[in-house]
């Protein structure tokens, strides 16, 4: 953990070298996140509820999803540059160091510009939490925290899988964006509105609904079983196949030389 903070500090210093650029990037992120929010707002100016979810409940869902995503992007932006690391041989240096290679790749870059999205999620969350009509007892607060924390871990796993594909191919990795960026963008509405098939896929194959739809039902009081509260924790099982996939790729890794 101490090591991670050190990595953070170094990253922060280097990115602050160009202050104007840095703030323009944050501003851009902030703005693009807000256009998505306006999309939701405009749809709800036409109708009041979708699939039984009201505007403020959808916002709660949207904010927690977007928060989880932005934290994941912030923490694991190193994965995004992984294919570059393989190509220029930086990864070889990582392999000889006495730390977990996943950790080092993850911490190699902390893209603070992602704070733009985080800031926007915080604002929406601050609005949605008091307005959602949820009475915030300790269990509800815990549920919301679980949604965000487990969500960001699961998104990080997806980024890790995306990075691991770089062991096998250098091109056409864009399809993974469907799950990461797509998950965030389409996850602004509870996944149940996309129908049973999609919901099942996002429950059992890629566990995005586990930290979005099910705990949301508990939050807004549609379900009172404690299982619904704890579903994000089941989602953490997704870490096992993701790390295994990275190890599998690592096993087949041949350095590019140089």
């Amino acid at each position: 953990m101490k090591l991670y903070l050190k990595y953070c500090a170094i990253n922060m210093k280097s990115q602050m070298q160009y202050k104007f650029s840095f703030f323009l990037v944050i501003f851009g992120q902030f703005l693009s996140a807000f256009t998505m929010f306006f999309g939701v707002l405009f749809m709800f100016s036409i109708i009041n509820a979708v699939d039984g979810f009201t505007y403020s409940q959808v916002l709660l869902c949207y904010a927690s999803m977007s928060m989880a995503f932005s934290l994941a992007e912030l923490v694991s932006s190193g994965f995004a540059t992984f294919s570059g690391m393989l190509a220029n041989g930086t990864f070889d240096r990582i392999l000889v160091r006495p730390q977990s290679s996943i950790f080092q790749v993850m911490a190699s870059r902390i893209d603070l510009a992602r704070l733009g999205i985080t800031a926007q999620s915080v604002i929406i969350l601050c609005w949605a939490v008091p307005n959602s009509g949820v009475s915030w007892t300790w269990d509800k607060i815990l549920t919301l925290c679980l949604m965000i924390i487990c969500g960001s871990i699961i998104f990080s796993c997806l980024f890790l899988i995306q990075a691991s594909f770089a062991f096998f191919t250098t091109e056409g990795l864009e399809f993974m964006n469907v799950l990461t960026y797509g998950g965030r963008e389409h996850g602004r509405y509870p996944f149940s509105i996309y129908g049973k098939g999609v919901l099942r896929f996002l429950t059992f194959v890629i566990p995005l609904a586990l930290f979005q739809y099910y705990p949301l039902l508990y939050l807004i009081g549609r379900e009172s079983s404690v299982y619904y509260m704890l579903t994000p924790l089941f989602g953490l099982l997704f870490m096992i196949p993701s790390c295994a996939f990275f190890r599998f790729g690592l096993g087949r890794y041949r350095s590019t030389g140089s």
Partner: protein
Amino acid sequence: MRTYFAVFRMRFIAAFQYRIVAFSSMTTSLVWGFMSILAYAAFYRVNPDAFPMTFPQTVSYVWINQTFLLWFAVVFTDGDIESTLESGSIAYELARPADLYWRWFTRACAGRVAMSVLRLPALAAAFLLPGILKMTLPPDLIRLLLFVLSMVLALFVTVSFTMLMYVTMFHTISFRGIRLTVTAVTTFLSGGLIPLPFFPASIRGIVEALPFAAMQNIPLRIYNGNITGIDVIYGIGFQVFWLVTLIILGKLAMGYSLRKVVAQGG
């Protein structure tokens, strides 16, 4: 003219090298369209009459929007022209005889056309999809032709706006920030996120007068029948107006900036 044709052909061929990328971006657009339509379907189930477009109209809108994503992208990620600015090879560009504005304009068009052609199979697939996902043809041939004309104009309006963005890049090095900001604003105000008719009436009047409304907004709504009759002609006239205005602005701004351009690096 022949020079520009050659520039176009070269960019076109270059873009065709990335077929795997195209394949994966096609899959992406199919999945994306699929999810968007399912979301719209859920909204339409609540009250189908509350919306300014019928459901099949929205479906066509979504599919064309998805497959021609890059056609309408003000910020196109091939990074070619931007890297010219970043690396300092702008100095060479300036030494070449053909006019810089039109050469870049041609190159920007070519990249977009090539990538969109590669994505066309996704649109074809959309016609074959079952149930609510199925894309429909416009009512008659004339409408289809007007759609094509409007598409070409939309491409030119988009690229002429991109040219303005390039001019601002002469003055700063924060390319990433500019790209993000421009993408966010243009995508939203051109109807890339949700169609402009879905905007609340109070701001719709303003948004529909902006140059961004002359991009995908017009051709997509001509195709799906949301704009009909004399309004189609108005729409196309509106596109021509903004195209001419943006090109004049772009030429002026570029001429002014080139006098004081800084070549980055050496």
